[in-house]
């Protein structure tokens, strides 16, 4: 930990709030959260429904901005960045995995995986080569031409993970990635995420309702009513 103290944490919240609406209609998603995530960590976020887990992950991934407080990305306050820089961060620094997969319909697995590379300005041939490699990494090289409606939930989530990996992200943000899957498929997906964390050193922040999935992560953060109420790091787990 000594070496980490000298450099700023990869992701840091300082009294981050997020609220919507005014007066009576005001809804508070985050009520002043302090959080630090260091490079290479595997963090599981748990908590009751509506406690602010998705809101946290969205802000971490620059899909949303805090209402107040600061989000520092490697020490840089994200609120000062232009929309195009935020887009570039979503493109290259973060990889998203959603509960509902969010693949483009009527588009092949290969093209879905290659989507971030289009916005990174990578040419067609290079795009296809890397997409195929990423599909192979998640064990779906033989389903490159399949459309999402021709794939099982577990396979679709693998495609989504391949898409999150394609541009070499530093952080994977997963919001209930196994929420729609049975326990065996969930275990496979968790194994995949763990290996990415251990073998490639990718930082993983994952929201989950499933204690078994949470148990895979070394660090567990619990949310309640827009605040962190528990943050435990257990020794002896993978990362």
């Amino acid at each position: 930990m000594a070496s980490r103290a000298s450099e700023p944490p990869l992701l840091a919240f300082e009294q981050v709030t997020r609220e919507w609406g005014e007066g009576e209609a005001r809804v508070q998603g985050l009520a002043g959260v302090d959080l630090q995530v260091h490079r290479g960590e595997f963090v599981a976020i748990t908590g009751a429904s509506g406690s602010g887990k998705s809101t946290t992950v969205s802000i971490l991934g620059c899909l949303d901005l805090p209402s107040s407080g600061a989000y520092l990305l490697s020490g840089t306050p994200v609120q000062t960045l232009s929309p195009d820089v935020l887009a570039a961060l979503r493109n290259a620094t973060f990889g998203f995995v959603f509960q509902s997969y969010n693949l483009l319909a009527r588009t092949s697995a290969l093209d879905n995986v290659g989507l971030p590379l289009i916005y990174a300005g990578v040419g067609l041939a290079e795009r296809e080569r890397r997409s195929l490699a990423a599909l192979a990494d998640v064990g779906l090289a033989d389903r490159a031409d399949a459309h999402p409606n021709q794939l099982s939930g577990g396979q679709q989530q693998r495609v989504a993970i391949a898409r999150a990996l394609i541009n070499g992200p530093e952080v994977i943000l997963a919001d209930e990635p196994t929420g729609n899957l049975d326990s065996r498929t969930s275990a496979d997906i968790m194994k995949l995420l763990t290996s990415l964390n251990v073998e490639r050193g990718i930082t993983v922040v994952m929201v989950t309702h499933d204690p078994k999935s949470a148990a895979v992560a070394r660090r567990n953060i619990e949310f309640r009513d827009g605040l962190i109420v528990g943050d435990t790091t257990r020794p002896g787990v993978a990362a």
Partner: protein
Amino acid sequence: MSLRATVSVAFASLLRNRLRSLLTVLGVVIGVAAVLTMESLGKGATAFISDTISGMGSNMVMVVPGSPSQRMGGGSSNAPLFTAGDLEALRRGTRDVDRLSPVGQKPLRVVVGGLNRNTTVTGAAPSYLEIRQWSVLRGRALTDDDERLGNQVCLIGQTVRQALFPGSDPLGQDLRVRDLSCRVVGELESKGGSAMGMDMDDVVFMPFTTFTRRLSGSDRIGLLVASASSAERIDDAKAQVTAILRARRHVAEGEDDDFAVRDPREIQAVLGQVTGLLTTFLLGVAAISLLVGGIGIMNIMLVSVTERTREIGVRLAVGARSSDILSQFLVEAVVLSGAGGVLGIALGLGAARGLAVVLKVPFVVPVAAVPLAFGVSVLVGVVFGVFPARKASQLNPLAALHFE
């Protein structure tokens, strides 16, 4: 994101909705097709009519009785016909009139043996063919002697030749018009084409004297044709003719002419006015149909942006900038309307081709209109695509992703 990638993304999403894309651009297709069809037919008709007019003889001047404010060509009026005296006075008194011929015409049945044909029998002076720049293919032309003596001789056009003398040489044979027997002394070259259904080769020529004595029964003259000494002298020739005829017909100072002196340039000018009017009207039709087509595109693009909000969310989540989304939808609109333009051009030219055959006018590709139509349809895509594309590009990533 490169333009090439943008265009291929746009194509991919349009092809995913083939039928809808097609229906969306129908307005543009029909608008462009209509304009191209009319443009092509108009050009064909103009080319055809100019051909016909230049076939009349370029220095030609026509004189008809009746006030010039009346319908072109004189029409029926109470103004007296011209006389042989008028003709003589014009021959002597004009400096810039080269040739002058009276013309009489009558639709009559012409008989040769067992064959007959209703054709136009024309009586005119020998100079008539020179005025019309019409030459004799075989045999001889009419002579001054023929005219003076009222010889019973005639020239025939190619249509008459084919109808009445199939497979035989007409020269030296006789044809009969009413009770007049007339020897064929020459065959005219073909003038080609037919002006508004009128076949110029469907004609029998004879001396004016023969015509008036034997067929019309009157030596009054309903039409004079003349040729000016040169194209530059046409206006002088017309002025001289006008002065002499006003004097001979006792038209008082300040009164309108009771005859009209025309030349083909005027006909062409009137024609230009008509086609100008038609073009303006067409442009109006085109503007309206392209406006409607453009609104159709905007409508579908707005629907598409709403339908694809989640797709936009996904694209934003994986790193699309708002300018990428803007250009994607803009290019989609432009590809859509541009494709509509191409389809419309093909359809319009196809229709014009078919109609040209039916209407017997030459098929002309309106060279300037093709790129213009394409350019305008692309422009329609830009103009009507901007609003939906801006709407798409301004979506919030998270809201778009969670859009139901």
